[in-house]
């Protein structure tokens, strides 16, 4: 009997040794706070005159860059897709052509990031792959319009980046899309 008791206690201890306090949380927010821009601004205010003026120049140029990018992104409309499909619909060809024009013109200094997205019907790998194939279709279309392949990166967010969360067909169709983002 004693043996059973001891063995069950030992087993219980083994089972719970993994769930004890020593499971630290990997908190990524801590890192993200470090890169927040407000910290940089405060730092540049305390340094000497010459340095701060250089900092301001740097800040203003990156600010204008970001504003420029944000403005250009407004001109790049998302491309929408049919359920379970990754071919570009005929009514979306204009948006891709417009994207190519912006990419070769005003946004020629930037990298284009294509973000593939899906509706909520499935959270599995296949759905992520579908989002990626959508981004890939847009990439091929941009390349055929003359945008260099080296300037385009892709990522799939699956169903994790919805713009609309209602349970309607209209809403789901808004989520099956590729967004254009610009990277410096």
């Amino acid at each position, binding site marked *: 009997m004693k043996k059973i008791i001891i063995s069950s206690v030992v087993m219980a201890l083994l089972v719970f040794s993994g769930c004890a306090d020593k499971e630290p949380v990997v908190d990524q927010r801590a890192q993200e706070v470090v890169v927040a821009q407000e910290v940089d601004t405060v730092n540049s205010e305390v340094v000497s005159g010459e340095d701060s003026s250089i900092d301001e120049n740097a800040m203003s140029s990156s600010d204008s860059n970001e504003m420029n990018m944000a403005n250009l992104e407004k001109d790049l409309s998302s491309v929408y897709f049919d359920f379970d499909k990754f071919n570009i619909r005929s009514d979306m060809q204009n948006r891709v052509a417009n994207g190519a024009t912006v990419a070769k013109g005003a946004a020629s200094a930037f990298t284009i990031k294509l973000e593939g997205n899906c509706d*909520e019907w499935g959270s599995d790998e296949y759905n992520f792959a579908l989002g990626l194939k959508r981004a890939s279709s847009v990439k091929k279309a941009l390349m055929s319009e003359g945008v260099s392949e080296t300037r385009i990166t892709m990522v799939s967010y699956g169903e994790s980046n919805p713009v609309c969360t209602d349970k309607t067909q209209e809403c789901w169709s808004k989520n099956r899309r590729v967004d254009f983002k610009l990277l410096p």
Partner: protein
Amino acid sequence: MRILLIFLFVFGISYAGDATIEVIKKVESLPSIAVEDSSISYDNTFRESFFKTLVADLNVISLFNVDRHHRKTHFNDTSVMVENKDMDYVLRYKMFQDDSEALNIELKLIHRENVVLTKQYKINRKNVFMFVAHTIAYDINEYMQAPSIEWIKRRVIFSRNVTPLKTEIVLADYTLAYQHVLVKGGFNVFPKWANKNQDSFYYTSLDEKKPTLKHVNIKTGKSKSIISSDGMMVCSDVSRDSKKLLLTMAPNGQPDVYIYDVASAQTKKLSNYGGIDVNGQFLDDETIVFVSDRLGYPNIFSQKIGSNSVEQMVYYGKSNSACSTHGDYIVYKSRESSNAFSANTFNLHLISTKTDFIRRLTATGINEFPKFSIDGDAIIFIKNYKSQSSIGIIRLNHNKNYLFPLKYGKLQAMDW
């Protein structure tokens, strides 16, 4: 006549252990069990929580008709309570706190006036009490000599979408009663246990410039990057010996299944089709199954590692976009209706590579992300029904399903 009997006997033997055949057990034939609480420490709320968890676990082991009345008695009373005298089994337990504030539980199982099993458990923190309840259910299942349910003590790791592009990776028990957030604040998906001991895991970070596979040791909290790929990166399966991974990567925007050797950090591409090839799963040491859209819709295929020839595994369902394997069995997710948005859309099915049987495992809602337990006794899956996300457990040999709802967020992926 003799030939017929021999035939029936052989037929009976060959299908006796086939999980694709539904077993319909008579409920009234199960023995009854009642639970008696003799706790001397802790408040009523905590006692009630523990009692409910234990009763739920006893239901999940599917061996008893469980009485739900919370009755209290003295641990050392020689006879069972009057209300329980007709019960086949009575489980009596006593919770008490010792000097080091650890939770102690003493229990005995009484069968026809005889104590047939005694056990004692101890844990340092009472907030993980549900794992004790699961262990008690495991021990009683062992005592009843039912097939092992090792999975009931294992831990579930899952990712949930909190807001767009923000997720949490959470450690839980199989009922989601215990939850501990392991990774928060970023956009991290597809967690996967790195080994049988569940002391480290892989996940995909989408916060990096390229999707990156990371490895975290839970005990030390140490995190390291393993490998990156443009477009997509998922750890789909870990081999039984933890030495090989099946990854989905998409350099050049082309998703394919790759095998990764943990020791040498070498990758090798396994699938070669120009469409979608994802969700690789080890069937045995030489064979994988995976999801591919090479027929124009997603379906399940198998391939020998190192060979290019591919075999279709599933001939039922219009769109079969996820799978998990154990031994000869494959469970897969299937879209059955041709109407993409009808209420009854995605169901799980079980097939055996040795027979032609198909068993439908779910009936309503969106059922996805099936994953066999480590012993093949049960399947865990994600159910999304009317904007409620739950974890489901299917007891294959008992033909029963259980659901455990998530309090907030939407389940993205999980491993068991």
